[in-house]
């Protein structure tokens, strides 16, 4: 890992963001659906529609709109939401802590469950614990989030009254959304941990470690697990950036005012500045997640170059 390698990658991130900005700008103008029509819905006249279009700057040419957006973006100004009438940067700043809290909580639950169950599967290969956790992880990767959310709400809110139905700001109200969001990731991590660990357990250095007097458990934890972590860490970094950017369903079901919900509102209402802002922001998170995964890989295995 070299400093120049990291700088090159950061430069790449900016290029990606510029591309995303251009792409989303063009796509939003190609798809049918006028934001003014959605905003005003049914109960207005053509004069009002025309006037609001001018007040939103939508009467200007597309290149003029794009360059003024780009100019603002360079200065950290992503425009003002058509609907919420607030600067997009402020709206993202307000929403992001909710998404971050949810993603961290979901990641912790998913990874703790995923890694532990993956290790148990690998250590007890082809026995009952392996079958049990493999079954659970398969369940994890195959059941969609909305179904998990509904089942959790039914069981832990409706039947057992343990957790609130939706997010209310308390720590407890974040538990169900975190489980729902982390559910798929837990299954993936468990399956990858199992396969990666089993590959390491077949390596001769495990026999050597045990011949030197280390217990099987010790050999797994101290030697095999560290080497098996490489692909898992990559997956976890990508999962985390995915959780930060893709919690749309979870945030909607549990009424969490995060980035996902903001993006959903923006697409439904064709709120172009807000949608451009949220897409740009999530693209940034994913690019940073990728960069982080590469840096972590390089730290864990010096043979890998970050550039």
């Amino acid at each position, binding site marked *: 890992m070299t400093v120049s390698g990291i700088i090159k990658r950061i430069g790449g991130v900016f290029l990606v963001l510029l591309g995303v900005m251009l792409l989303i700008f063009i796509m939003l103008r190609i798809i049918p659906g006028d934001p003014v029509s959605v905003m005003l819905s049914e109960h*207005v006249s053509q004069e009002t529609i025309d006037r609001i279009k001018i007040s939103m700057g939508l009467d200007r040419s597309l290149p003029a709109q794009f360059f003024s957006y780009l100019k603002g973006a360079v200065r950290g100004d992503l425009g003002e939401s058509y609907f919420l*009438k607030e600067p997009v940067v402020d709206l993202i700043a307000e929403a992001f802590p909710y998404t971050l809290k949810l993603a961290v909580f979901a990641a912790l639950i998913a990874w703790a469950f995923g890694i532990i169950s993956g290790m148990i599967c690998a250590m007890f290969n082809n026995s009952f614990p392996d079958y049990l956790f493999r079954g659970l992880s398969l369940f994890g990767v195959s059941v969609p989030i909305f179904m998990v959310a509904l089942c959790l709400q039914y069981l832990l809110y409706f039947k057992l009254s343990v957790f609130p*139905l939706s997010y209310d700001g308390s720590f407890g109200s974040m538990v169900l959304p975190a489980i729902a969001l982390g559910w798929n990731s837990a299954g993936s991590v468990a399956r990858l941990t199992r396969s990666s660990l089993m590959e390491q357990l077949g390596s001769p250095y495990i026999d050597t470690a045990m011949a030197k007097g280390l217990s099987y458990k010790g050999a797994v934890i101290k030697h095999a697990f560290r080497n098996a972590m490489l692909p898992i860490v990559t997956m976890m970094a990508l999962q985390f950036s995915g959780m930060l950017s893709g919690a749309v369903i979870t945030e909607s079901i549990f009424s969490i005012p995060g980035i996902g919900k903001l993006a959903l509102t923006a697409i439904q209402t064709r709120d172009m500045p807000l949608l451009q802002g949220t897409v740009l922001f999530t693209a940034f998170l994913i690019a940073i997640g990728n960069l982080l995964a590469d840096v972590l890989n390089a730290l864990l295995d010096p043979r890998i170059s970050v550039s």
Partner: protein
Amino acid sequence: MKKVFSILLITAMVLSLTACGSKNAGGADGDEKVLRLALNADIVSMDAHVTSNDYIVPMNVFDSLLTIEKEEDGSTKIVPSLAESYEISDDGLTYSFKLRDGVVFSDGTPLTADDVKFTFERILTLPESVQTDFVVLIDGAEDLMAGKADSLKGIDVKDDHNFTITLSASFSGFLAQLATPSTCIYSRKIVTEAGGDFGNICEKTIGTGPYIIKEWERGKSLTFEANPKYWGEAPSAKKVVASVMDPSAMNMAFQKGDLDIIDCIFLDPNVVDSTYRNGKYDDSMVKVDRMGTNFFMLNEAVPPLDNPQVRQAIQMAIDRQSILDSIYNGDGKLEDGIYPTGCVIYSNENQGWLKYDPEGAKKLLGDAGFADGFDMEISLDSSAGNQNSNMVQVIQDNLAKVGINASIKSYDRASYLDLRNSGKAPSYLALWLLDYNDPDNIIYTFFGSKDNTVLRSNNYQDEEVIKRIGDARQIVDPDERAAEYAAIEKKLVQEDAVWVPMFSLKHLFIKGDRVESFKPQWAGWSDMYYKDIVLK
């Protein structure tokens, strides 16, 4: 020791989580009278001047000069609110108002006639205002909007309590427009001091209404508290929490007792049938007639729908009663005109003429030269819900029986509105729920100008009738007005077959055990006046 500590830590965590959960799951909030409601979507703004959809805050935190009340017989009347009384000049041009004594905004600022003038000037000059149509007939409005005047000439403030409004042309629906939340009254002082924060920041969005908006957590909830300075009777619920929920969560929360009223329009119709129409909730059901017409619009610019005989055949081909019974459990009433039941000037003369007659429809199609039928397209708003798409499918089936091959094309809401506003939707099914109880609200919106006929994709061609609709607004004599509106309705629906009138529906709510009584909004909107909900 380590193990004991771990057990204690885990126990403490579980207890704290359970405590968090049970507080909210139970929904109790001390001994306060808290009303707990659900919204299907968050509002966009608290400022009535910039939204044509979100009226919860304008309805509960602000007041209009007048308001509309529903009578026992289903008719509606305009009653005083902030305006204690009014008089109309013989020519119908000048309205003299007297404001109620002692009304203050919730921060103590007194309400004056100047605030009314300020409010209407703001509607006309705010760049993003969407409510200009409501006050554009006030004398001088056009000049103010065009920047040719500094103030609204048509409003003359006599003193703190008395003012007159002069219209540029008489309009009998004007009073009804002043009774909508769109024209609720703001304070010049409060709005000017708040600047851009008005409508966005709760502390600065101050009105004269029965509630104060305490908190708006975007995407999550709105919290209201009773306004101790309210001029009217104090509301029963001292606090109202309206939370944004998805339909399944809403249903679960109501079943568990964490919501006090559930609006069945937000729920899956199958859930409503299986859960709430099974007899268990009969005593808790609150049904209100929605003052709105469901209709199937036919675009005259799309051949062969330009042929009136073809449109009449489509009117006869659709089995409306069967749709009402099978999709809506018969919870409504067939409408044969434009104005829905309960609307001022609703005419029984124009009812009862449209019968389901597939054979007659076939004959008409044959006479029009389409004995072998034709192809047409129905545009469907995919966000309009299952019942709407089921209705469209039944219509498709009905049309097939007379030889018309109708294809359904589904659009997301934004694309649908785009298509419809461009005048190019070939046919579509929709509902118009009245903003105010006057026929002008529906007939002018759809057929009152060339622009409006394009915007609503009917492309109605008869310019003489379009002119008559404009002229009818100015008729002052009530009898003459009623006769003209009824005649125009007959011409449009029975002769020109501009649309297939379908029905008006009932809006179903279920109240929970904590609610003593509940009166829905007069037109059957989902937005409620919280003061009309009495807790036990």
